[in-house]
């Protein structure tokens, strides 16, 4: 089966745009993290598509590295969200505004 590179790029661009919209519209830190994950995986799809196009394994290695890093980021993000949740009951990043200017 031969999937053209254009198809890979279309899917990854769609994921990237979805993630960007999510980052801009969502206010809950959990959903923000989810949207960032979408954007990271958009990069992964593109990497794997190009890896097939060039018949070069480096792109797939890169995608694996990205997955590990994304997991690490989510762990930190969830940890921070839980710590914040302990100090307040309502989760909304717009209320995290004790500093302004």
């Amino acid at each position: 089966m031969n999937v053209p590179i254009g198809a890979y790029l279309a899917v990854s661009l769609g994921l990237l745009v979805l993630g960007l919209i999510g980052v801009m519209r969502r206010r809950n830190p959990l959903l923000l993290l989810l949207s960032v994950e979408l954007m990271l995986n958009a990069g992964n799809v593109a990497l794997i598509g190009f890896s097939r196009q060039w018949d070069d394994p480096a792109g797939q290695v890169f995608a694996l590295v990205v997955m590990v890093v994304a997991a690490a980021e989510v762990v930190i993000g969830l940890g921070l969200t839980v710590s914040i949740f302990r100090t307040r009951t309502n989760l909304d990043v717009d209320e995290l505004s004790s500093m302004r200017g």
Partner: protein
Amino acid sequence: MNAGAALTLYVMSAATVLALVLAVVPLPAAWRRLPEWVGCIGIVATLAIAVVQWGDRQVAFAGELHIDRFSLLLTWIILPAALAVILFSWGEPAAAGRRAEFVGLVLAAATGMMLTVMSGDLITLFIGIELLSVALYVLCAIEVARARSLESGIKYLITGSIGTAILIYGFALLYGVTGTTSLDGVTARLATIDGMASDPLLIAAIVLIVVALGFKASAVPFHMWTPDVYQGAPTPVTAFMGTGTKAAAMGAFLLLFTGATQQVSGDWRALIGALAVVTMVVGNVGALMQQNVKRMLAWSSIAQAGYLLIGVAVGTTAGAEALIYYLFAYVAMTLAAFAIVILREREVESGDTLGAFTGFGRARPWAGVVMTITLLGLAGFPPLAGFIGKFLLFGSAVDAGMSWLAIVGALASVVSVVYYLRVVIVMWSQAPDGQRTARRVRVPASVAAVAVAGAAAIIALAIWAQPMLDLCADAARALTIP
């Protein structure tokens, strides 16, 4: 293949792991300083190795790492910054009980910064940037009981991971255009293919990478997180973000643009130039408004990122040389300034506000002198190192036919004099406020040492500018000629 070339990274990683292990081992009271000592000794040992290794490029792990004059010189910037941060937090009341984690995370972030500037491959570059970012997300939020520290951490995490996602997409497109992740491979590929310069995929890749590194270097318009994160994070961590992260991000800019994609510099020179202009203007105007010194330094670090970006935008080795010299000066000045802010914070409640500095120069003349030298240096007064660095950066812009960058830079520097001198005037013109100085504490020797060393470095960089510039020129040449 020469795995020994990466010895600096092994030592740093070993020190990181050791410090983190100490975090879970119950230490007897007499040994409570052990994590800090592990950190200091690890950093000093690594710095010694980095000095001895100075020389032509050595390659480790099949080209994944390049240990050359460029990466080693930037390591000389990153490691003293990390050492200063550990000294800042020496005996810091807020970090009590979490000293080992603090030191371990600082070492991990420093390792990530070194990995970034040593990388010879997009994958290593990405891992380096992420290692430093993830460690700093946690460092920002390390005072878990303080709401502002947590707020700073989550804000940095969210904006930082958006930057990461954009960086990955940019790297993916660059890989798609060139079919290789190796930086040397990218250069070779761009040199062989005609008509590559107008490839829309390549231009998209460049734009995305510039945006993502702009997030990390806090360039306008990707700077909105900087003032909040800098103000909310513990001050030693802020100092680290302002120095080490900036050095690593500028190193990544130089590796990817002045180094790897030099062939298509027509595609990115105007783009990065525009970013530098907006950053200088918005950063300096933003700093004018601030009443909090920590926040003012955050805006000033945005403005300084603009000056530094001039060195990337010109795309020449002269620009890279000026940038590296200015990085040394900038890091020395920023560390000294934050040392004084930390001193004041230990003395009085809300010691980071402008009001807290009223009469500070008269109350503690040596600290006042250090802060004055530092702020004059940041404003670019001759003959200090900050002036020489700016002069070289603007000069490289004129030589590269981008005089508009030099003009905006010079005007922005004039504006910056207002807010830097405001602190100096507040420190010296008024008598110390009796109520504020009532709670005099003993000056922590480690913080004072960093302040004095920073001020001495600003003067030394100006006196021995020529030998220093020779080193920077060697480093800049190593970017393009392996």
